[in-house]
């Protein structure tokens, strides 16, 4: 299986720093009242989005759920347009109609997030079905959380995917919590990869905070799916640093000790790995983070400077004309 090298490490660090800083900024802007709505941040989970989407093509369709900013950015969505969407501007990815839980960027194959837990899992299978019928080698990927696995439409889809042997990669970010309750309150099956065992699809559980592990496991599945295999399930064990949503008091769980998190943090880990491997030096690392910070500020400026959508947009966007 292909391992990451220095060049990729740099790309992945850029992607992770962009997501991290972008979402920290979104958190601030939410508290400041510049962004409103239901905001779910993926801080701490950036490694999964980065290490998977970096290996995908624009024609590989990605679907996601309510915690989707990182997936959209990693798949190539412009930070400016994502930020503008979160601020409800006309220049947003969805012209301000969708918001945080409904990001879509068709141009880059980010086919959409959803506010319905697990709701997009069957849609991704539909995209894989279309790829198979159209005879192209595109692969469909869907991100979902551990809480979605107990929803009927998830298992229904796993059964169909296995039955039809379609090029779908089910990507579970298992952060151990669904809203305010731990996985143990939702099921006796600790590992999501065990839930799908009966359907005989190839599956793996990896440390989602270890970018190279995710990269390699996903890369292997992707290669296989590209060449006619599938479906696959990759479970990434990860950690939600922030509350379920911005504003969540978060009293229901104790935060990881600072030191412990520094050990786990996918960004710091890859940085340490890069230094040890001699891929990057402190300056290079600093440069990557700084560039990401600039990009985020550009995004904020762009969004702030963008107009709100025209009043008649609501009525015009209900139906596609054909």
């Amino acid at each position, binding site marked *: 299986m292909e391992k990451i090298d220095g060049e990729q490490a740099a790309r992945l660090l850029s992607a992770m720093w962009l997501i991290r800083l972008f979402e920290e900024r979104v958190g601030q802007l939410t508290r400041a009242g510049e962004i409103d709505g239901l905001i779910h941040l993926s801080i701490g989970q950036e490694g999964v989005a980065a290490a998977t989407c970096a290996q995908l093509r624009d024609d590989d369709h990605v679907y996601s759920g309510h915690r989707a900013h990182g997936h959209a950015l990693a798949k190539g969505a412009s930070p400016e347009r994502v930020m503008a969407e979160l601020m409800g501007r006309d220049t947003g990815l969805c012209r*301000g109609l969708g918001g945080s839980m409904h990001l879509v960027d068709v141009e880059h194959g980010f*086919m959409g997030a959803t506010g319905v837990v697990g*709701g997009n899992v*069957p849609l991704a299978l539909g995209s894989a079905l*279309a790829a198979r*019928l*159209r005879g192209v080698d595109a692969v469909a990927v869907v991100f979902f959380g551990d809480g979605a696995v107990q929803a009927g439409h998830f298992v229904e889809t796993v059964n*169909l995917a296995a039955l039809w042997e379609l090029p779908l990669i089910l990507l579970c970010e298992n952060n151990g919590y669904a809203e305010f309750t731990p996985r143990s309150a939702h099921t006796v099956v600790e590992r999501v990869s065990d839930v799908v065992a009966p359907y005989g699809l190839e599956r793996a559980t990896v440390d989602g905070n270890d970018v190279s592990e995710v990269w390699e496991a996903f890369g292997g599945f992707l290669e296989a799916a590209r060449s006619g295999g599938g479906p696959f399930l990759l479970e990434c064990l990860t950690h939600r640093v922030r509350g379920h949503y911005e504003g969540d008091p978060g009293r229901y769980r104790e935060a990881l000790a600072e030191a412990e998190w520094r050990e786990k943090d996918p960004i710091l880990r890859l940085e340490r790995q890069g230094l040890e491997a001699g891929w990057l030096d402190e300056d290079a690392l600093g440069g990557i983070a700084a560039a990401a910070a600039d990009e985020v500020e550009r995004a904020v400026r762009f969004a702030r400077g963008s107009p709100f959508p025209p009043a008649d947009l609501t009525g015009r966007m209900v139906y596609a004309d054909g």
Partner: protein
Amino acid sequence: MAETTTIGAINRALSEAMRGDERVIVLGEDVAEGGPFTATAGLAEEFGGARVINTPISEAAITGVAIGAAQAGLRPVLEIMYVDFLTLALDQLANAAAKAHFMSGGQLTVPLVVRTQGGAGHRGAAQHSQSLESWLTHVPGLKVVMPSRAVDAAGLLASAIADPNPVVFVECKTLYFRKEDVPDELPAVPIGEAAVLREGRDVTIVALSRLAHDALVAAECLAAEDGIEAEVIDPRTLVPLDLETIVASVERTSRLLVAHEAVAHGGVGAEIAALVQEAAFDHLDAPVSRVGAPFAPVPFSAPLEDAYLPGVEEIVAAVRGLR
């Protein structure tokens, strides 16, 4: 002219659409076997298992699959065997299919057709006999088609498959084997246009699906026995609704009856009554009257089901009641 059944016309429209556009696929429970009503008979044989796909009993997931396939460029025609089980697919239909184009700011389109069938009269009891179309008309982003005649079923199905939006196509099980003469070339019927099935000056009857045929029978009876000339309109499409045709008729007749098989309370008739009393208030000589099922589930027992179901009698009585 050739005689066909409604189900035959639907079957023909499906095979013609599949022949004309290889993006069209058919999926659903037992569709490769033709389904319980033979709507998809012969399709698997002609187009193969890759385009005519049997599915397990997973209404939610197969609806989501059809939506995703549509977003990826196919034109899926999904069959939900009974509208009663559309309840299991409603999250996907209402939250995903109906809103995708809107929420994506126009980036996504969902050229999906969901074929299903409703209606009672076959002793199917409460869970296999419902008429739930009014739920769908309350969901912006969906189009809702509900034809009464074979020729319209074929023509509207062709239009629905060609439409870039999700269309729910509601058939009626008790009309499936009704015979009708149709032109050899089945004409496309545009979505959103009502059909005036009978002209009349005294009262307008807007009737859906099976009730449209009952309305025609009732109209003849009213003409013969009461000298009342009823104009019978089949909206054919519920969303978008051709209100103009209905209002224009009421402006001439000054009386309106809306008839459908669904439970009257909260049915499509309520919306049509509300719209027309507002649009034609000064023309109405009597309140808009409605014929629909009583507020109860469909009973199994034959005499109770017969008494429960609205039909010719109820239409005749309601028109006579329009003082």
